[in-house]
């Protein structure tokens, strides 16, 4: 395999210095994400408490910034319980299955430009593998197992329901996620995150957000929020229905791992959004000698912080979806939308005329689809319902649906 084709660091062969640089990159990346998670947890608690007119953490350090550390120490010294009905091996395995994918996904995010250290060109990202952004899809596929197996292995009812919900939800939204990523890959012509970022580096008009026309970004943002089980898609750990969801039976360090992974994923996915649609580290660089390399990093951190804040904002502002609404949104809205948009983008890339043809076809298909949804919806709630007697009991008319969804649903 030709490593040099994806990373100029290996162009002179793999020597001791190169290995040292790689090791330093890994350690710095690990330190950065851990530090960021500590800050993120504090930031979320503080921002949420501000939005809810509370004070929030304030005891440890200035503005309570060391609260996460204190919580971590507390969790570390708590008793570690494994329920009697648990499958011990899987119960202990599950937290790592959520944590490790979160770490690996972060390793492909470009944090800055390219540095030259002692004749070696060093990309400021932990790794730039040839399969690039597909790593992120693969890892989000793996992180399903963490939640799913945790819920099952607890040997308890609510976590089991939570894990069934989690697996269905995460698989549903992966399709929409994959198709928006395909539009990005189509317009970039490459899978690697480095190429995705460099193709957007020539100003705001080249950002994929604008080049692809907002829709893929919107779909990606919604799908990734659902994939992370963040509010308003956190039906997996809906307190009012499922106690603590899949993590109900977890305590001590294992719970801390889940907590860590959740916030790590939030940061990583903010960073992935920035990489895919907002040019990553691209931005205006002031003419300061010797310090030019630091500005891309600042841009990257600023953009990522903005999206991390957006997630907190969602949590504070939006009420949780009902589970069937989550499924409807995923399958009936986002997947057709992202599929259609992908066809239009592909058409325009070949020739504008083809793009218009594709757009016409997509409009036609969406009319047919809307008609199909309408028919199916009427069969579902109408007097001669085809749904069996089990599950959804026939309601008097569709009173309840109208009560919760309004007239238009």
């Amino acid at each position, binding site marked *: 395999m030709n490593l040099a084709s*994806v990373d100029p660091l290996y162009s002179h062969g793999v020597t001791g210095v190169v290995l040292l640089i790689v090791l330093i990159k890994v350690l710095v990346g690990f330190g950065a994400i851990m530090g960021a998670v500590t800050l993120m947890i504090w930031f979320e608690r503080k921002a949420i408490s501000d939005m809810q007119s509370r004070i929030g953490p304030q005891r440890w350090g200035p503005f309570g910034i060391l609260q996460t550390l204190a919580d971590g120490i507390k969790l570390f010294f708590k008793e570690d319980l494994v329920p009697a009905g648990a499958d011990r091996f899987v119960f202990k395995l599950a937290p790592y299955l959520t944590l490790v994918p979160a770490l690996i996904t972060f390793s492909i995010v470009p944090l800055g430009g390219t540095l030259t250290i002692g004749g070696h060109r060093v990309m400021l990202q932990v790794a730039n593998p040839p399969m690039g952004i597909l790593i992120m899809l693969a890892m989000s596929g793996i992180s399903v*197992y963490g939640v799913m197996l945790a819920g099952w292995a607890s040997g308890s009812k609510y976590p089991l329901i939570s894990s069934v919900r989690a697996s269905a939800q995460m698989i549903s939204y992966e399709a929409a996620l994959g198709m928006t990523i395909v539009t990005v890959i189509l317009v970039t012509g490459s899978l690697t995150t480095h190429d995705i970022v460099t193709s957007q580096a020539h100003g705001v008009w080249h950002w994929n957000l604008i080049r692809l026309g907002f829709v893929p970004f919107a779909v990606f943002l919604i799908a990734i929020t659902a994939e992370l089980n963040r509010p308003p898609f956190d039906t997996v750990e809906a307190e009012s229905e499922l106690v603590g969801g899949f993590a109900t039976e977890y305590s001590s360090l294992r719970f801390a791992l889940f907590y860590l992974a959740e916030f790590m994923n939030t940061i990583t996915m903010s960073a992935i959004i920035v990489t895919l649609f907002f040019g990553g580290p691209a931005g205006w660089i002031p003419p300061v000698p010797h310090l030019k390399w630091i500005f891309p990093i600042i841009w990257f951190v600023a953009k990522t912080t903005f999206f991390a804040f957006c997630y907190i904002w969602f949590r504070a502002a939006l009420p949780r979806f009902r589970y069937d609404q989550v499924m409807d949104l995923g399958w009936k809205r986002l997947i057709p939308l992202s599929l259609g948009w992908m066809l239009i983008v592909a058409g325009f890339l070949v020739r504008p005329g083809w793009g218009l043809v594709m757009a016409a076809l997509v409009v036609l298909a969406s009319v047919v689809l809307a008609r199909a949804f309408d028919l199916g919806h009427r069969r579902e709630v109408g007097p001669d319902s085809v*749904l069996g007697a089990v599950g959804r009991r026939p309601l008097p008319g569709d009173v309840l649906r109208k009560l919760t969804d309004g007239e238009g649903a």
Partner: protein
Amino acid sequence: MIAATYNAAGVLVFVTASTLMLVGALGVIVVKNPVHAAISLIVTLFGVAIAFVAQSADFLAAVQIIVYAGAIVVLFLFVIMFLGVDRRDDVRVEPLVGQRPLALAGVLITIAGLVTLMARSHWVTGATRVSTSGAPLATGQGNVRQLGTAVFTTYLFAFEATAVLLIIAVVGAVLLARRERRVDETLDDELDVEVRS
């Protein structure tokens, strides 16, 4: 001939990947708990993905993880969780008569086919390795381009036929699961299912 081109790192990767595959595959068969068997299957799939990466088939490796480990085994687990893990079927009962001799014959035919292929030709493509001889696989995005070209030109008919087959399967499954029935009939059916299980 081939052995001369192997290096230590390549052998190490091959041994690791093969160990993962074999241990996982054995686990699927030997382990009693279905959830543990599914986890073993994931281990096998990871081994296969590593083998793909070692052969410069990066895209296939990623797809292997995304599709098989990320979706198909999740669905297996989903079904297992729905049906409950505690149900044990008796191994001595054969649901289909003559199932076991037929399975044995199938395994023997497969092994014979593989051995014949190995002995008489270089597998299907005529290449002993994916990366160097025969049509070489390019790394990175060239990899995807090659696969895409192959799928949409040489193997277009097979590709489209598979797509149609999958659509038919999905439509059929939906039709079977949600066919229209009268209410009393539905109740009878459900009672029947409960009695049988």
